[in-house]
């Protein structure tokens, strides 16, 4: 007799909300003048806009192959011999600092045994207490946190996941950082000034103000990771046409192995289709036509991409339980060779994941298959951190923590934050960094300091120079045609209040068509449903914001 938690849970939460009323007077202090509901306050149109933080790039070590404007990352095959010290002042004052961040790793070992944690605390001179929320529960945890509105941690990290009312929450409960960061003010924090402007823009302003510090990510977004060894054995070329791609996937399937694996969370929005839509030339989420915003889901290219997904499923080239498997399980299936390719975030390209593959196979990135591919660029960030409202001195301390953890590649601070303590978590030899066994349990994967501050990403994969070179080649080949999402950083009240529901409509629709529960022709109905749920309004609001930002 399993009882429902939902209805009662909801009511219970309402009770919690009522209790939280005591904290409500806080809100009036920073409201945007009330009137027209809370959602209107987050838009930037018609507001005084504070300037973006100045960009003062760090000179840094010389790369083996340079990066470029379309987003190719600087490639490092060797670890720099001399490191710079980027932070000279004391960061903290010995006080306790709490943070809530997402995690993709196991929970950290307790502070008393965790030498990485101890070293971070010592370097920052704070007692850093991190609450980690596993990725699958992140949305739920955040909605509950925002609903309760009390007991907020000092540092609250937001991912790119659309959470209902999150912007209003930030505006109401989090510190306005504009005075500390806008324009030249950011120069007090040199490592934050080294964050490129596209990351700030991708984060966007709220009501014209800056409320967060972005966690930068390179241009490639949701990408296809392939098992190059399997592909080479099957004689599959790196560059492929749509037909060759479909054939290749069929070729790699059978005998309880599959060409491609998706996972559950890809279908709560457009995640599952990005590689295909980009390959076939569909615009990245939105395109701007004569000042109007047109959604990619209305384009014929998008329907072609749906058709490819459908054909993949029909040919039994896709892992059959792709709609129910978690991301971590699917990654395991990829690492152990059950599936030959996986759609995943570019951030999955890390030393820790390469270690899981070991010498089983050679990792490579999948090239887009269409003749006029428009690979979708990322928003330029993984997410951003915000701070609970506090006195300016406290905010400065928190910003210094972000500054320290955002120190770029080639600094001592980067080395500590990313690899830990030399001799304990890693050693150095002529090939560069070699992580120790302890690194697997004590690192910024289990204690995700990298979600409090992140350096602009470079391409350096210690011990895997060939993979790094292959990825660099792939970036050079695929990024020139790539396109950004024109809606990045633009605000829409409709998206704030209904974005999650609209995403669900699309995710459900893509799944239904890809898995053959609905015919391809049903896509137009889904588009209609999405428009009625707020899609049209969203487009209008974006157009207004876009015009105001030009």
């Amino acid at each position, binding site marked *: 007799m399993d009882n*429902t938690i939902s209805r009662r849970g909801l009511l*219970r939460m309402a009770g919690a909300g*009522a209790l939280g009323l005591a904290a409500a007077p806080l809100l009036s202090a920073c409201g945007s003048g009330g009137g027209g509901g809370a959602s209107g306050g987050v838009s930037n149109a018609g507001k005084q806009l504070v300037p973006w933080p100045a960009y003062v790039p760090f000179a840094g070590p010389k790369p083996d192959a340079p990066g470029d404007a379309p987003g190719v990352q600087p490639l490092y095959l060797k670890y720099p011999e001399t490191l710079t010290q980027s932070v000279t002042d004391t960061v903290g004052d010995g006080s306790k600092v709490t943070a809530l961040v997402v995690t993709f790793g196991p929970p950290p070992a307790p502070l008393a045994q965790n030498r990485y944690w101890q070293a971070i605390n010592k370097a920052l001179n704070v007692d850093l207490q991190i609450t980690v929320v596993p990725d699958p529960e992140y949305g739920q945890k955040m909605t509950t946190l925002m609903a309760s509105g009390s007991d907020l941690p000092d540092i609250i990290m937001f991912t790119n996941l659309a959470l209902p009312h999150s912007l*209003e929450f930030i505006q109401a409960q989090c510190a306005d950082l504009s005075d500390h960061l806008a324009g030249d003010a950011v120069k007090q924090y040199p490592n934050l000034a080294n964050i490129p402007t596209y990351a700030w823009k991708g984060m966007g302003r709220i009501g014209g103000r800056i409320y967060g510090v972005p966690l930068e990510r390179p241009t490639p977004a949701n990408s296809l990771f392939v098992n190059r060894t399997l592909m080479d054995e099957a004689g599959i070329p790196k560059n492929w046409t749509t037909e060759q791609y479909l054939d290749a996937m069929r070729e790699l399937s059978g005998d309880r192995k599959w060409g491609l694996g998706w996972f559950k969370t890809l279908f709560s929005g457009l995640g599952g289709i990005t590689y295909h839509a980009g390959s076939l030339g569909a615009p990245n989420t939105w395109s701007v036509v004569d000042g109007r915003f047109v959604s990619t889901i209305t384009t014929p290219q998008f329907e072609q991409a749906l058709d490819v997904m459908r054909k993949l499923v029909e040919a039994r080239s896709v892992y*059959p339980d792709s709609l129910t498997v978690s991301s971590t399980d699917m990654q395991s299936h990829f690492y152990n060779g059950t599936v030959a390719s996986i759609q995943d975030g570019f951030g999955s390209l890390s030393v820790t994941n390469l270690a899981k593959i070991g010498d089983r196979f050679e990792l490579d990135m999948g090239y887009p298959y269409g003749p006029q591919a428009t690979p979708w660029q990322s928003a330029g960030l993984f997410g951003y951190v915000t701070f609970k409202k506090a006195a300016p001195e406290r905010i400065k301390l928190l910003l210094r923590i972000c500054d320290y953890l955002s120190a770029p590649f080639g600094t001592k601070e980067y080395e500590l934050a990313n690899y830990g303590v030399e001799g304990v978590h890693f050693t150095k030899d002529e090939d560069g960094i070699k992580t120790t066994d302890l690194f697997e349990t004590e690192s910024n994967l289990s204690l995700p300091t990298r979600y409090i501050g992140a350096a602009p990403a470079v391409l350096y994969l210690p011990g895997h120079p060939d993979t790094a070179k292959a990825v660099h080649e792939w970036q050079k080949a695929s990024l020139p045609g790539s396109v950004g999402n024109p809606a990045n950083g633009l605000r829409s009240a409709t998206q704030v*209040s209904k974005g999650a529901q609209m995403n669900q409509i699309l995710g459900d629709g893509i799944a239904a068509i890809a898995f053959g529960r609905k015919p391809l022709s049903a896509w137009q109905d889904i588009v209609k449903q999405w428009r009625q749920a707020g899609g049209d309004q969203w487009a209008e609001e974006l157009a207004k914001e876009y015009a105001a930002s030009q």
Partner: protein
Amino acid sequence: MSMTRVRSGAGATSPPMEKTPTPATRMGPLGRIRADRVLLVIAVPGLLYFLVFHYGALFGNVLAFQNYIPFLGVSGSEWVGLAHFERMFGDPEFWNAVANTLFIATLQLVFFFPAPLALALLLHSIVGDTVRKFVQSVVYLPHFLSWVIVIALFQQMLGGAGVVNGWLSDLGAGSISIIGNPGAYGPLVVAQLIWKECGWATIIFLAALSQVDEQQYEAAAIDGAGWGRRLWHVTLPAIRPVIVLLLVLRLGEFLSIGFEQFFLQRQSVGPEVGEVLDTFVYYTGFAGGDFGYAAAVGLFKGVIGVILIYTANKVAHRLGEQGVYKA
């Protein structure tokens, strides 16, 4: 409390739970409080629990009439009156969730409700005590597994990449599609429920069966009644009040078919067959942030539940049964 009072034939040995007030011993309210103070103190925690978590939380239903935004609170959110209810009655997704819920609830009532009764009768007929205890323990165990594990297990067995399909492909046969097949979804979720909860649900029936007077069986056997007739004329009439009681309770919760089980599997078949009222409330309220609308749907479900339990109880009285309560 009246539910737990057992009707015993003679009544002579039952403890005096309520003293019959006679003129000589009539006490004032204060006197009664004094006399029952220990019982009252014992009742306080339970009373508080109900006041805070059930009656207190009832006020949360005010959300159903607001465009509620959590951190603005009840006083800061916009009052919309019956707008959510109007929207609800015109919302095809809501009706889709209602239809799915009714379909699965009916399947549960027809297939899940009698299953523990049958199992209890089987267990009761096992003579050897050790064997019975062992079987009982085994069938209880799944109750203690969480839905996440149960569903993972079913997927590992029946999924497209699962064990069964592995065997079939080894044998060169085609694969069967159960997980992710909308047509198989209803039977699948009821099968999962039976697997997980059937054993546990036998407890009450077994307790009732142990109350059946052995002499009646002997008398029936002497009169030449076989196994079937003894079941029909002795066992079932004896435990009928318990069956009706559970049925009334079940009908009151008719629309509450469970949350986690459906939440975890909704995506594999899509909302067309996988969305039930509770997941609908979750997706609009928690994932979508539309707390007001979600609360309206929840309230609607609660009202239907009250009507159902009231009606079922009335029907039970008509049939001469005790039901859940007597008004």
